[in-house]
């Protein structure tokens, strides 16, 4: 896996903003495989088709190469040529109308979340061999005891796992400051190696003894032990895109992890960390979960945003029930629109971070695939058709961007097949009613 063309001479401060080195030409000749994939989730849908039948205010209109961005997608204007906007993908009829039903299907493409999610699948295939197979970061995604169907990453059928909500804890884990094994090191600590060997000996004895009892549970546990063993023994070390001698993220603005006022700073730090971990070659597969479905996040308390109104609490889920019509005079509607625009801006911020770091003959964004998703289409009707997915990044040349792709009607498991293919995985079907990769999506 020596595809990376390392840019020489990057210092420790490589994550400082760089000029956007994005070539102007839409055609990008990479090696045809994405180095990494990031799933970016936000809660409670978008302003789609209203209950009264008004057309969507999310989906773009026009032709494949000549289209205009919708009002909610304006935040991506600078990245229009780096994105593919998708119309027509459906998550199927089961539980349509439900937030939890949608969240369960979103990354699994299986009704009731009864399957492994695409990020976990990729972590096992193209992600294995990396110091971390997968990185799952959250922003207030475990607030108020949220778990179960609130989380989109399914480690096993029916079993979601919880993201790490504290960027400081996640940072320590990744970079070893908290006694963790971090990103692997050239020198192997013989004591750590003895410990993991001893644990593996117990695990192997146990598996032999139990046979089929709890086999799935122990298989997952064993895989996790192998991954850590690899880090401890310095195997599978990836070449970093940037120098990672003294990695750092700014967590000074976070304050109370549970306060709505802190949310933007937490999300910023998690996005910094995700990009840093990937730039340092620690992982190829990442998921960022911003809040959870039916979110109680009081977005009207985000300082310095258009939504800010300290005298009135407007929650994400509350705003999503904006009523039967797109009525700008209705407070919920106006707030919901602003909220959705804010999520799109955060996604653009993630793209900007990737575009700021040179990699090979382009930027990290050119070598990445980034997915924007949420669990329902319109937040008021809660339907699961024509889901608001956006792909970004040129995926090392696998994805030709700057397009509006209307798939007519296709199940969204097909999108995950295409994403896997872009990552160099030969997946042919994923989830319920999959018809295979979306034709013409990848180059």
């Amino acid at each position, binding site marked *: 896996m020596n595809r990376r063309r390392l840019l020489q001479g990057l210092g420790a401060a490589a994550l400082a903003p760089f000029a956007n080195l994005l070539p102007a030409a839409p055609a990008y000749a990479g090696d045809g495989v994405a180095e990494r994939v990031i799933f970016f989730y936000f809660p409670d849908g978008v302003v789609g088709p209203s209950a009264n039948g008004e057309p969507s205010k999310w989906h773009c209109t026009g032709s494949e190469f000549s289209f205009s961005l919708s009002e909610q997608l304006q935040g991506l204007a600078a990245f229009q040529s780096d994105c593919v906007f998708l119309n027509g993908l459906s998550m199927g009829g089961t539980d349509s*109308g*439900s937030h*939890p*039903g949608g969240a369960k299907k979103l990354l699994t493409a299986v009704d009731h979340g009864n399957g492994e999610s695409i990020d976990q699948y990729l972590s096992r295939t193209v992600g294995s061999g990396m110091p971390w197979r*997968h990185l*799952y970061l959250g922003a207030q995604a*475990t607030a*108020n*005891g949220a*778990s*179960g*169907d609130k*989380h989109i990453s399914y*480690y*096993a059928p*029916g*079993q*979601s*796992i*919880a993201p790490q909500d504290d960027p400081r*804890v996640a940072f320590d*884990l990744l970079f070893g400051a*908290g*006694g*963790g*094994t971090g990103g692997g090191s050239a020198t192997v600590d013989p*004591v*750590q190696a*003895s*410990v*993991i060997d*001893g*644990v593996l*000996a*117990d*695990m192997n*004895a146990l598996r032999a003894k139990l046979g089929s*009892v709890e086999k799935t*549970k*122990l298989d*997952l*546990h064993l895989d*996790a032990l192998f991954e*850590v063993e690899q880090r401890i023994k310095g195997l599978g070390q990836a070449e970093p895109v940037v120098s990672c001698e003294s990695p750092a993220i700014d967590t000074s603005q976070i304050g109370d992890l*549970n*306060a*709505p006022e802190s949310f933007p700073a937490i999300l910023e730090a998690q996005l910094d960390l995700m990009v840093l971990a990937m730039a340092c070659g620690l992982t190829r597969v990442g998921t960022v979960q911003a809040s959870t479905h039916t979110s*109680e996040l009081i977005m009207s308390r985000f300082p310095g945003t258009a939504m800010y109104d300290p005298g*009135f*609490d407007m*929650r994400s889920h*509350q*705003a*999503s*029930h*904006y009523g039967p019509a797109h009525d700008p005079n209705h407070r*919920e509607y106006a707030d919901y629109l602003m909220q959705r625009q804010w999520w799109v801006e955060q996604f653009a911020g993630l793209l900007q971070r990737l575009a700021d770091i040179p990699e090979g003959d382009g930027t990290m964004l050119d070598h990445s695939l980034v997915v924007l998703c949420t669990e329902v289409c319109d937040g*008021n*009707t*809660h339907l699961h058709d024509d889901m608001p997915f956006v792909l970004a990044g040129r995926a090392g040349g696998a994805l030709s961007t700057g397009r509006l792709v209307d798939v007519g009607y296709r199940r969204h498991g097909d999108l995950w097949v295409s994403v896997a293919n872009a990552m160099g995985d030969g997946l042919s079907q994923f989830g319920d009613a999959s018809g295979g990769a979306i034709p013409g999506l990848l180059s």
Partner: protein
Amino acid sequence: MLPLLLSLALTGCKNRVADPADLVDAECAADGYPEARLRLLTRAEYDRTVADLFPALSGGACSDDLDCDVLTQSCVAGSCSNDPCELVTFHLDAPDGPYGSVHVAGTFNGWAPTVADGGWAMEWVAEQSRYVAKRAVPDGNHEYKFVIDEWDWRNDPANPDTAADGYGGWNSLLAQDCEGATGVAEAITEWSAGFPVESRPEHYPFDNSADSGLVTTVHVEQYLAAAEAIAEQALTRPDTLYTCSPGADGCARELVTDLGRRAFRRPLTAEEADRYEGLVEAQADWDTGVAVAVRVMLSSPYFLYRFEVGQIDAAGQRTLTDFEIASALSYLVWGTMPDEALLDAAASGTLSDPAELETQARRLLADPRAREIVGRFGLQWLGVEGVTTLDKVDPAATDTLRNQALAETAALMERAVFESDYRTLYTGKTAAIGDELAALYGVEAGADVALPTGRAGILGQASVAMATSHSDQTSPIRRGLFVRERLLCQDLGTPPANAGGVPEVDPDATTRERFAQHTDDPACASCHQYIDGLGFGFENLDPVGRWRETDAGVPVDASGELLGLEQPGGTDLHTFVGVVELGRILADSDSARHCFTTQWHRYATGRLETDADACTIAVVDDVFAQSDGSVEELLVALVTAPRFVRRTP
């Protein structure tokens, strides 16, 4: 009693004749036994287990007592240790201190008027603006006061218990009772602070789901890091690990055998003992070898999972081993590993005898550790743990108030289980109330305060009011669903597409008016007739649990209706006004009681019930009903039921 038994027998155990005697003897085997399981320790279980494995390390590293977060800990040999029960910590916060002197005078030192006469001098701790004294106090009731500058006699402001002094005044009262206490860990080090949070499946309220307890890479990393830190601390107190001479013949064997038996909650096999002994001896020096063995043990699947796997006997039946039964019992009742007595009982092979299991269950239930777990059960069952971090616009919702609200709920739960009966949960008229909560309720603080009119039991508690409200408004929907799902175990399913959202706060409309659409629109009413009418009965309690007489300037209408009490979708209608009347309805309801039994069954098994569990739940619920709501009898029936130890082969 008989009609009740008949109906339970018919609905719960459809294949059985409705003879109460048969119910008691029922094996409930007709639908097979549960699957063999490995149950990952929850974060709370992990921390308690480590605290029990290394009792001397229950606190963090320290150089003096001040480094310990908890007043009732002292710095012993470099780590914070919980004080023994006999040692009582007196403290007096003195923001305007220091004074010339402060001492403790009481019946235990002859009301010494001065330190010279034997008064217990208190030490000034400038960093905390506080006077502190730690003294061993024998069992019994003691009265005392603090004496400032040897003339100003004051009661202990931190102690709500008082006794009349015979002169029309009051002394602080200390009821010391250490006999039988087993060194309850009052402060548990949170080694698990960085572990991922537990996932809870839909409708499963507890943190111990057997299905969801999966180990990810992040778990492994955190387990290894915690084990390293614990081993490092343990090595500062080698006496907690071994008493033999380091490096002496057999010392490594002794260490791994003793620690292994407790860490794995069963004796090591000879092969395991060999391997662990080898781990100690393979390292360059003794301490490193010990550290490696401890770290491996604490990261081993044998430590991290509770085994409910069993063994298959000659007849092909799978039954939990005695040691597995010991753990199943101790984690259910204590939330931690078995103690020596329980391990010994397992070793003697007697726990498979239901009579001995019952004896042990009653012993564990009588131990103070059971109280804490019962409180935790209550907070999870009611879904109120999250109130510590919920957004509330009301400035009264300080951290202190939230914690006092949780403490009130936990205390009521403990009272209902250990001092009263199940109905107290719904009808209790006294409560343990801290100062900020007392101010919110408009009563005096204390350990046994009479509640004001309009509050009784859990339904009137601030914790429930907070958990079932938004930041700025009450939610009749959440409150109705709270009763349906948590108290009646009824699932109403997910709302349909086009469901309306939360109506805006409107200064001119009451909550009831704003939600009227739910009952005016027939599409909404089909479900909301079971929800809103219930929730409206809570309207006297605002989003933080403060009593309110008006909402939007209009007198609150707290009349409510409960449609379909005994079964979901039922047509029986129960009307009430306010939570006190609702509490009475629930206290007398078979369905609420059956749900309470079901919630304990969930907690004990780590999963939602299936049809195959209906019979056992009915049998346990019947015992519970006949015992007039004794939760101890419920739990004893649960652990002595055949399905507690039997598994499908």
